[in-house]
């Protein structure tokens, strides 16, 4: 049960950590790597505040042992944009008041990022269905949905302009 080496990529940087097999990925990210974007909300696989992107899947990092992610590529909200270079989703959440307290936002944005990769022009219903694994206790979701639809438009506009 001793600690083992676990290697994965977090936001493009290769990491090599030592962890017991029972260590959950969310703890490795937050406590060992100081990647504190993903939050611990419910810790019971419901709320989605800990959502990270692993090899193209949205995953609740409270329900995965770090060692299961050995060899994967992990993206957190920190890897999606930076304060100087916000991702369209981050910009849209700011512009459309997609957050109030902000606790659920890293999970919301990380999940929405994957949703828009898979479905670049979702309907409102598809956004609501695709975001059903993320809970927000402030906004009533209306502005979150609005933000994601606006980000999709922005991303599609940028793409069209480039073509």
């Amino acid at each position, binding site marked *: 049960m001793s600690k083992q080496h676990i290697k994965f990529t977090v936001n493009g940087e290769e990491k090599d950590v030592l962890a017991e097999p*029972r260590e*959950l990925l969310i703890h490795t990210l937050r406590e060992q790597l100081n990647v504190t974007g993903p939050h611990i909300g419910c810790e019971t696989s419901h709320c989605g505040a800990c959502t990270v992107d692993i090899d193209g899947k949205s995953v609740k990092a409270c329900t995965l042992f770090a060692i299961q992610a050995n060899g994967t590529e992990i993206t957190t909200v920190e890897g999606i944009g930076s304060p100087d270079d916000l991702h369209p989703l981050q910009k849209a959440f700011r512009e459309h008041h997609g957050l109030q307290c902000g606790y659920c936002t890293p999970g919301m944005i990380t999940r929405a990022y994957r949703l828009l990769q898979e479905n670049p022009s979702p309907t409102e219903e598809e956004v609501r269905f695709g975001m059903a694994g993320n809970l927000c206790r402030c906004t009533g979701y209306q502005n979150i949905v609005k933000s994601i639809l606006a980000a999709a438009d922005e991303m599609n506009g940028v793409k069209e302009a480039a073509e």
Partner: protein
Amino acid sequence: MIPGAFEYHRPSDTASAVSLLQSHGDEARVIAGGHSLIPMMKLRMAAVEHLIDLQDCQDMKGISVDGDAVTIGAMTTQHDLIESKILADAAPILHEAALQIADPQVRYMGTVGGNVANGDPGNDMPGLMQCIGAVFTVLGPNGDREIAARDFYEAAYTTAREDDEILTQIRFTAPKGGYAYEKQKRKIGDYATAAAAVLLTKEGGTVASASIAMTNLSDIPVWSEAAAQALVGGACDADSVKAAVAAMLEDIDPSEDNRGPVEFKRHVAGIVLTRAIERAWSRA
């Protein structure tokens, strides 16, 4: 919530996973998507000394359709089921059901094999597999054996699978006719208060064949032959749907929990079955 300590194994194929299970006996558990097991380990309701991660077992992944023979590897995720065009064509009832399981994040991880093998009465796939007459393959020290979904479930969390066996694949014949999977749940991510899987075929305006299974209304899924029989030969009108519901209510045995008292569950069971039959008939 930190689980108890365990040793982690990641075999590269199913045969190696079986030998690990054999050597560690009942101290070992396999993990697929882990979205049932890890929460239980975090609550310390499951104690595992040796955790055998099946994620590298490529021989347990994927969906194939050959004519009307459908095979699904146990490590196929709910997300994979939803994304599969060939499966949606061959067995749209699986697509409809998988969309109602848990939430997007959980569906990326949760596997169809874990869903059927865990024996949790709340899981949706066991009843569905009984409805469509699926057969499970389990691999053990003496090789493969096949168990019909209708014979697999013995009690809550107790199945015909032995401790040193792994459920590796699911096979069934592509269902014909109308289908529906109708589920009532309190919120996204919850297990069913009641759910119904229905298949119907139609000949000359009457029901030629029917299969009905109910989820989370007993400690095992309930495949109700009496409910199906009540529909066969009739025109699927209000009276025969009522008769099917009455027959189903004889077969279920729900217990009270935080989803409601027994009478409420029986009420919901009747409603979901009525809706499922009506939708299946409209598609037959």
